[in-house]
């Protein structure tokens, strides 16, 4: 118990915050003992074996390798303490502070981990009784979390970050769990699709070549502009992944999607295409009504457009950025501080749900997805038809009625360490917020690193995962081996621009369209 209590403080990573001199000695002694016991294991690649040890130190001094070594022991002690507290949990359930919880969600298939954790009894096994309540839109969902009406919620990845830095509603929101990767699509109306086909004859096939770039859309936009109009498109929230993806897709083909400024909070400045907010479930109806000519939204609302024959999905966000983070499980900082054990228990249940969702059979097929679709199709969850939800969730995607493609990675819940709250994910969203002017001031690199570390809580995830390993519900390979919580640089974008999460300002400057910051800002203290 002593370790369990103190481990919470260990994670603050300064020797001074050990409960006592004795506590520190105890911790270090136990580290040594464990090292002796496990020498064989630790010998191989010691750094890699100690999950997250290195990056824990970055809390204090980002990107400084000297401090890695300096605080190595401290972090080591913390990591071991995490392990020990895990073994306490092994015998009995966590001592949760609150056992009846309410979680909010939006009717999208990527709320699946929350629904599965409830329906498959993972929450209950942690001693939690959870009510899962549909919310009408992202704004109200966030407000309900802030007022305490909800304990936690299915959130857009950008939401905790934006709330924390005060773009929109200000509140300190944190996340320790990424719900899924990918899962969005861009759909255009039949009319626009026909014009795109005219502009780009290669698209005129039942199965056109992917990825489809927005270049075919450019003449359509231009024609509208010549007529004194702007093409209207829908996205779900100003800080949603969809907004950034749609902007990215348009901008990669040279179409200006508009900038946010301190006066223009709608993001229409200089726009060639105007993007406005529509709640996901209303997208098909709004498209049908002709208010917008296209949208970017999560499932099942792209498949719904195909099923109803009102639009054509042209691309998915998997094509825009392979394995991009999509939704997170967010709670307020205050709630996380008041209910540390409950938070851990929730993350444990979610990790198990994510793993269950991505479980594959002998031939690599996703074995549990059909059952998941059945659960999600209940009217109090996503509520769309089972057959519509099934399309994208079981690894297929209909681009047109004649064009059904295998997309095994359309929804990733656990594979590729998807559920880990990577700092780099947060950095990407921050860079896009700056690129499009939602962050109005230039910021130095350090600021980006500081913000994500206030929002993402990989420590909680690691602690929960460790416990699950000890309980035999997770294997070590499921936990990412990372030194600092950043994914390596990647160029898996539709335009091939490399994203190095350690150099956000440099990344922002690589884009043709969007804000650019002086490089001197990057290194400014």
């Amino acid at each position: 118990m002593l370790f369990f209590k103190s481990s919470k403080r260990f994670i603050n990573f300064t020797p001074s915050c050990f409960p006592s001199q004795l506590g520190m000695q105890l911790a270090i002694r136990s580290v040594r003992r464990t090292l002796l016991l496990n020498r064989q294991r630790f010998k191989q690649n010691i750094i890699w074996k100690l999950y997250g040890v290195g990056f824990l130190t970055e809390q204090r001094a980002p990107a400084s390798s000297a401090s890695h070594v300096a605080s190595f022991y401290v972090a080591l002690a913390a990591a071991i303490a995490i392990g020990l507290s895990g073994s306490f949990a092994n015998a009995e359930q966590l001592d949760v502070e609150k056992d009846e919880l309410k979680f909010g969600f939006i009717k999208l298939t990527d709320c699946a981990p929350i629904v599965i954790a409830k329906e498959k009894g993972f929450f209950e096994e942690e001693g939690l009784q959870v009510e899962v309540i549909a919310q009408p839109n992202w704004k109200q969902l966030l407000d309900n979390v802030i007022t305490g009406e909800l304990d936690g919620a299915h959130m857009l990845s950008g939401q905790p970050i934006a709330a924390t830095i005060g773009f929109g509603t200000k509140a300190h929101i944190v996340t320790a769990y990424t719900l899924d990767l990918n899962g969005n699509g861009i759909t255009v109306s039949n009319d626009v699709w026909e014009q795109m086909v005219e502009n780009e004859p290669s698209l005129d096939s039942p199965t056109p070549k992917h990825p489809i770039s927005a270049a075919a859309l450019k003449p359509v936009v231009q024609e509208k502009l010549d007529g004194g109009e702007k093409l209207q498109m829908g996205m779900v929230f100003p800080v949603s992944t969809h907004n950034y993806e749609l902007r990215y897709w348009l901008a990669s083909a040279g179409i200006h999607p508009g900038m946010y400024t301190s006066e223009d909070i709608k993001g229409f400045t200089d726009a060639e295409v105007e993007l406005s907010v529509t709640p996901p479930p209303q997208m098909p109806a709004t498209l049908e009504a002709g208010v917008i000519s296209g949208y970017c939204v999560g499932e099942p609302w792209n498949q719904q457009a195909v099923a109803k024959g009102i639009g054509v999905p042209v691309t998915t966000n998997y094509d825009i950025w392979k394995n991009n983070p999509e939704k997170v499980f967010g709670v307020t900082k205050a709630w996380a501080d008041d209910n540390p054990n409950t938070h851990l228990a929730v993350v444990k249940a979610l990790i198990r749900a994510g793993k269950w969702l991505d479980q594959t059979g002998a031939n690599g097929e996703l074995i549990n997805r059909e059952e998941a679709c059945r659960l999600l199709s209940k009217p109090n969850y996503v509520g769309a038809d089972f057959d519509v939800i099934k399309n994208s969730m079981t690894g297929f995607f209909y681009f047109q009625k004649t064009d059904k493609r295998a997309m095994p990675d359309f929804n990733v819940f656990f594979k590729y360490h998807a559920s880990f709250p990577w700092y780099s994910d947060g950095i990407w969203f921050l860079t896009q917020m700056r690129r499009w002017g939602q962050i109005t001031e230039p910021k130095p690199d350090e600021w980006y690193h500081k913000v994500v570390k206030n929002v993402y809580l990989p420590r909680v995830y690691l602690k929960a995962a460790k416990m699950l390993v000890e309980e035999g519900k997770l294997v070590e390979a499921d936990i990412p081996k990372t030194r600092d919580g950043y994914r390596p640089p990647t160029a898996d974008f539709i335009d091939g621009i490399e994203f190095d999460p350690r150099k956000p300002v440099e990344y922002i400057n690589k884009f043709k369209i969007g804000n650019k910051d002086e490089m001197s800002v990057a290194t400014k203290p």
Partner: protein
Amino acid sequence: MKKFDSVKYTLLRAVDVSGFKVLDPVVRLAFGEEPPKQLRDIFRFLVVPTTFVLVCLGTWTVIAPRHKTKSGEVPTPEQVWKSLVINDTLNRREDEKEADFQASDADRAATIDEVKELLAARETKAAELKSQLSEIEAATTATQNARVGPLQEEYDRLKSESRERKSQRKLVIEELAEKVANENATSDELLDALREDKRLSEESKVAEKAVKERINKALAEPPVELKAAQMAFNTAANEVQHLKKRLDYLETGNRSLKVAKAEELAVASLAKLDSAEDAAAILASAMSVVRNEEKAAKTAAQNYPRAATIWFQVQRSLFTVFVGFVLAAAIAIPVGIMCGLNRVVMACLTPIISIFKPVSPVVWLLIFQIVVGAFFPNPETHPLFVYCSKLPFIGKLGVNPALIFSACTVAMCALWPALVNTALGVSSVERDHINVARVLRLGLWDRLTKIIIPSALPLVFAGLRISLGVGWMVLIAAEALSSSEGLGKFVWDEYQNGSSHSFANIIFACFVVGIIGFFLDRVMIVLQRLVSFDDGAAAV
């Protein structure tokens, strides 16, 4: 005979007061009063209207499937009835799961066997339906392919032909341009050729488009039997899943089971505590005992987290409208009386009433969310909600800020008819009565309670009746917007679900709202009749 008469008149009065005056001839007929006249009345006021409603239903049944929307066909009365059945099933499932969660050990064993048996039966049925479905699916794909295949061929043929013609024309035009350059042809000829080319390509495009549309149409319409088979299989599969979940609850998730487990652990730790020798071990097991005791107590107090179902939502909506209505009445009646008594007060309030009366409930809701929301910084620990959660019936409804906002919105919109009517009632008290009061030198209080309020009551109630109607109407919008669990949220959620049942569910909700509204109105009529003196109905 006389005895019967008194029964008859009591019944007639009851029928009258409750507003079901159409039943009047039925009662009279039962007592044998002028049968021909009663029969004629029954025919005119009961049979004809009933037939009319049936004709309407018939028209609906015939017309609905013909109107194709992009969200599917308009549901028929049968489908709406089905959605009642489905919603009731969902409610039953929640009931069952709740019972399973709370079941005692004795009940559990029996239920487990029952559920297992049921599950086995349902699983075979689901498997059967599944194979049927896949057969139909295969057949559908085959017919679709058969239909689309030739069309696709035709489309491809048209396409290649037009492409060829286009390139030929291009050659001709290029030649012509050459000729123009060599002055063998006029530029007008070239222009004409270009125009002709444009026209021809447009033409072939139109032809292609027509074929493409036919292809899309062939693909778009899944046959009725496929839809029916899908639905049958889905229903069976849902039931199987439900039964599996029930088994989970009965076998592992049951509350008493969990309590027993925690208690067992506590006892085990207690035993360890007795046998432990060193201080650390003693402390550890003592802590474990306390922890598990606490855990057991906490688990015993746990409730099943019920998903909101239609009947619960109806109850909650009724409660919300009741709260709003009482609030409205509590404000409207005293203010109305003041307005009626004093013309200066009336003059002061008239601008406020006239400006706020036409404001939409949506606006009020947003204002209340901000203004009233400020009173509940932390709803979890707010005394009002803590108190409400402990009340017997209301506790189950889960009073939360969203409910308060909805109730306030209802109150704000329902306020005006009651207020205006009360003011009117008070100001139109007969002068004679006032004069009598003056002669008797009644004080203000006596004048109010003995003369003014009693004579204003019929109008007050008429106002309250309108208020309740307005309140009920507004409530649905308020709930939809504030996502306060209730009928409004049901409608909104269904709209968002966009499933094949959603449309029928929305129409179903429309009937639920209508029928409840009707009964609420009847209740108010009865109250109104009871307080009015005109036709002696108050005697009932």
